[in-house]
């Protein structure tokens, strides 16, 4: 199963990044995995912090933390935005 990422805004740098998994995992587990992977990648430390506040969405809806990712899919990473 391949999960590809499409980041918006401050998470734009994640575009094109993908990960292969042998077993299904929840959004919560994927977030933790992604944070671990990015923490060892130079230049991504700020994104690791931001990731804890990001939402994940497929192309139709924002996913809950318990949503099971069990097929090849594109995940949109929606960063927190608080300005006005």
């Amino acid at each position, binding site marked *: 199963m391949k999960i590809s990422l499409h980041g*918006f805004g401050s998470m*734009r740098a994640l575009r094109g990044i993908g990960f292969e998994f042998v077993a299904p995992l929840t959004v919560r587990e994927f977030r933790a995995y992604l944070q671990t992977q990015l923490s060892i990648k130079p230049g991504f430390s700020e994104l690791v912090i931001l990731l804890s506040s990001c939402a994940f969405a497929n192309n139709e809806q924002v996913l809950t933390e318990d949503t099971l990712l069990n097929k090849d899919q594109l995940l949109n990473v929606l960063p927190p935005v608080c300005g006005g």
Partner: protein
Amino acid sequence: MFYHRCVVANQRYQAQLVLPEIGIDGQAKLAAAKVLCVGCGGLAASVLPYLVAAGVGEIMLLDDDIISLSNLNRQILFTEQQLGEYKAKVLAARLTQQNPTVQINWDLSRFNLETGLPIVAGYDLVLDCSDDYATKLAINFCCARLAKPWVYASVLGWDGQVALFSLQNREQPCYKCWQIKAPQATASCSVSGVLGAAVNIVGSYQASLALQALLGNFAQANRLFIFDLWTLEQQQFELAKRQDCVFHGDNLIHEWTQPLLNWAQLANLANIRLIDIRTLAEWERGHLPAAEHITIGRLIAQAPQLFTLEQTLVIYCNQQSLSLLAVENLRHLGLQAFVLNGGYQAAIQQIQQQQ
């Protein structure tokens, strides 16, 4: 005179009266509508002229901030000559000039969890033109409690987000269902910057969603619209109610049964910080022994700086509804937070009984 006013009104709104979605009936709905705008910065400068031009009956502007030079790249209704003046006052004067038939009021009150409920109760719709998470949470809390629709909007850098939360029943999602954790400090304009054109795009969408809601159309509600003005992408996502969201009615009490502590139990806890989140006036009238006063807005916004993981936080308000909200946010940050069962009043009674 009445006939003259009708003719003038028809001329002013002629271009939208012919729209089948508005017409005479829709125009009457807009004229009868009362809108609360929280924040008078860039978003307000973008959204409000369209609501005023469309003939919304009454608009209240809330903001205690003054105009500064660094605002002018996006708050395009202000000028250099107005630096240092109150944004709400200047904006009200500007919008009244634009359409004198709209009643524009302004106030320097801060909108928060303590002040928000009675304010929101008087309006049909709330526009979120704020620039911080605590205020957005407060708007969400008040609107969820009162089943009032609100239009969320945020801008940062080249990016924007907009959503209409209808909140007509408990099955519909709220802001907290989706934005489960407090954004970091980097999610604010002062830290990460903001493009004026992005604010304007988001403001236009916000105006459109607000007008649709006032006309009674909620077809676009509970969807998150996202814009990336750098890549010129836009996308929309359906939002769903999170089953464990504490903003949804009965869950508020039910879900937090576990983190409730009675006054007598506090003696058994180590490294405790007892925090009073009531208003300053209430605190000064009396508070619990060893307590410290922190407003709920500051508590939510600055929790990572105020507390450590080793501390046991016990929060109280007058009863416990605001404490539940505070504790929910603190727990999302991984902090050990508890609600003082029954709040200040219950604790006072228990202390008196012990004596």
